[in-house]
């Protein structure tokens, strides 16, 4: 297991380098940060000066090399818009995103798995149909639209929750629900499928033949065997989750990495975008590693080597 973890960690730099390189090139090729950054009234001399300072006059590959040097120095270079090293800017936003994503994940996971179990146990009956329909409806709901509808309903009409921003646990509810709705349906559907599949396993009959109660069968025997595909899916969805958080954070003025990233892309603030992509990629890779480790703990057959 240790070797597995080390090997997986060793592949991260390759992955990240690939991701960083692509991001860098696309950003540089598709926009001129100087034009965006400088005042509309900036003189050509000013423009030239800044361009030189940012090494924008060098060939792309040299720029990338210089950039990598900044990365190696540990700060990803100076952000244009923030006029500070890029990495701390991104790290400063990390907490908010982790809060949002983890609460949303927890919400989606708990309710999704519970819903999936209920749907599987009542397969082809009304609860299954309702849950499946709800799940599919949730899947079909564009999340920004849902976000706006939630604000209108719960903040403006009912006045139960604040519209946006941060500050208290109430502020977290609407964005977390919006983001969770993004994942919840899939958790329901996948849990339903794996529970149905696992339900026909012979070892459950063994447990029943021992005289185990149905609840013990569900929680001691069935779930530990059914949960791994759900976890696999979770790992695969981390990227989409970050994508979803971009929109959710924008709608709810949540000061996380998602909203920072989209804004920095539009500003062609390459250091910040790449620092963000870097952090996000590492988070995703680590989350997947965590999922693998978790799976191997749950299921000893998934030996990690």
């Amino acid at each position, binding site marked *: 297991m240790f070797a597995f973890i080390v090997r997986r960690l060793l592949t991260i730099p390759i992955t990240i380098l690939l991701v960083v390189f692509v991001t860098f090139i696309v*950003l540089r090729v598709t926009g001129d940060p100087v034009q965006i950054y400088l005042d509309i009234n900036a003189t050509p001399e000013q423009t030239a000066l*800044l361009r030189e300072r940012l090494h924008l006059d060098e060939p792309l590959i040299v720029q990338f090399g210089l950039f990598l040097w900044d990365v190696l120095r540990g700060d990803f270079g100076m952000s244009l818009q923030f006029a500070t090293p890029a990495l701390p800017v991104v790290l400063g936003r990390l907490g908010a995103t982790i809060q949002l994503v983890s609460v949303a994940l927890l919400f989606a996971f708990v309710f999704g798995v519970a819903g999936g179990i209920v749907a599987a146990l009542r397969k082809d009956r009304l609860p299954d149909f309702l849950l499946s329909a709800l799940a599919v409806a949730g899947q079909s709901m564009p999340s920004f639209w849902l976000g706006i509808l939630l604000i209108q309903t719960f903040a403006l009409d009912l006045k139960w929750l604040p519209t946006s921003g*941060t500050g*208290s646990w*109430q502020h977290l509810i609407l964005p977390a629900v919006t983001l969770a709705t993004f994942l919840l349906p899939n958790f329901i559907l996948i849990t339903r499928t794996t529970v149905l599949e696992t339900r026909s396993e012979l070892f459950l009959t063994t447990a029943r033949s021992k005289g185990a109660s149905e609840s013990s069968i569900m929680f001691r025997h069935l779930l530990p065997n059914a949960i791994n595909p759900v976890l696999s899916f979770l790992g695969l969805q981390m990227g989409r989750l970050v994508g979803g958080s971009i929109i959710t954070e924008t709608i709810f003025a949540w000061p996380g990495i998602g*909203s920072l990233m989209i804004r920095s892309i539009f500003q062609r603030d390459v250091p910040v975008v790449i620092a963000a992509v870097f952090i996000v990629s590492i988070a995703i890779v680590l989350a997947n590693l965590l999922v693998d480790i978790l799976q191997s703990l749950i299921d000893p057959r998934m030996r990690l080597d």
Partner: protein
Amino acid sequence: MKRKTSPRSGGLRGVLALSAVGLWGLSAGLAGAQTLNVGVQGLPDSLDTAVSSFAALNMALQTMDALVLRDDTGKTMPGLAESWEAVDPLTWRFNLRDGVTFHDGTPFTAEDVKFTLDYILAPDSVYGSKSRIGQIESTAVVDEHTVEITTTVPFPTLIIGLSDIPIEPKHYVEKVGREAMIAAPMGTGPFVFESWVPGDRYALTANPDYWQGAPKVEGVLFRQIPEASTRAASLIAGENQIIEEIPIDIIPQIEQSEDVSVQGVETTVGLLLTFDTRNPPYDDVRVRRALNMAVNKPLIFDRLLQGKGAVLKGQMLTSNTFGFNPDLEEIPQDLEAAKALLEEAGYADGFDTSITTRSGKYLSDVDIASAVAGMFRDVNVNAGVNIVEQGVFSKMVQARDMGPLHMVGWYSVGDADFATVWFTEDSGRAYWKNDEYEELFTKARSTVDEAERLAAYNRMMEIMHEEVPAIFLFGLPSIYGMSDSLTGFEPPSDKIMRLWNAEIAAD
């Protein structure tokens, strides 16, 4: 029900909220009873005064003052400088206000002015607003409260340019370093910097010793809410007392809500659709004029801008800008004449074209571009709307190819010089070229004689009116939403919020 506080501060919820806040370390959420909450579209990404954007300047001028201030209509007035005079065409003398102190109690002196200007004007400086005062040659401290500024050429826009330069405390910057200054800015302004969470909030407390008098609120909390509908919701829900940048179609939502209202003010931003006059068909002035005539500007103004702002009077300058030519009229819609002109130019069957625009850069920008494109169809011109993202637009600017027609809003901050420069060859931005225009521009820029300058700008407007290098659309409004409990705040024409007089009425 009127709310002046953060909405959920009472009872159990308050306790929960407080504990949650403590837990989450985002304590600025529950400010004091008299804190003014402001929802802005975007907070500046950096507090560095070198970053020039409305958002950055808006924040900077809350904690700092400039030598010259502007009022809500854009007129200059004395700031840290009590008065000024032109000693000769190249020399200005500023008499500084006495008894002004920085937030740490240190007196403000001429040294601070020289320090600030020298920093900006240093050859390697990329200070954002450098061009505003670029023609300054040197700054000299005459005495503790007098500063003399020498310019390389006669520099008529110096005063207005200085109004965008917040004065920094020399002793503080030298002591803590520029980075610390950027992290925790300090000045002589009405509010004292308290905290800043990038992308989220910017918190200020009142400066009781402010030279214009202590603010009437205990503090200001700016919150960044990029999504317009969310911003509007926060106003209606009573979380904010002021919100900026309200899209037109959200206005009804606010107007229908109780205790809040909308106010728009005309800015100095003139929205144009600029032709690429280098290539056919727009190298032909008849085509340009015809397309100008194809657009029913009052209709768009009425419908898509809800009558907020103004229709440009056949020129690029807004009526509140020095240099505006009152004799010119807007070019009216005349489809017959337009078709005739197109036929004359050989485009009776029309042609395909496209309008390049960014989305969300200007109020209703895409809507206006789409509406214009729709109207072109009436004269058989088939126009697509090419929405490009900010970064791509920047690349197009650099390559000097923004498509046959592109939408841009030029702002003048009240003086024609800042706007007209973009149609000169030196700007690197113009496609259209006119020798007389160039001459007049240079002339107006190098004299401090107001009448002479006005005449030159008026003539330049006439030339543009004839040559139509662009379709002159609208003087854009800036639309604010405000709580009815708020007094002492007027929507500013230059997006700089002046809040030291703002007051929130008690219930």
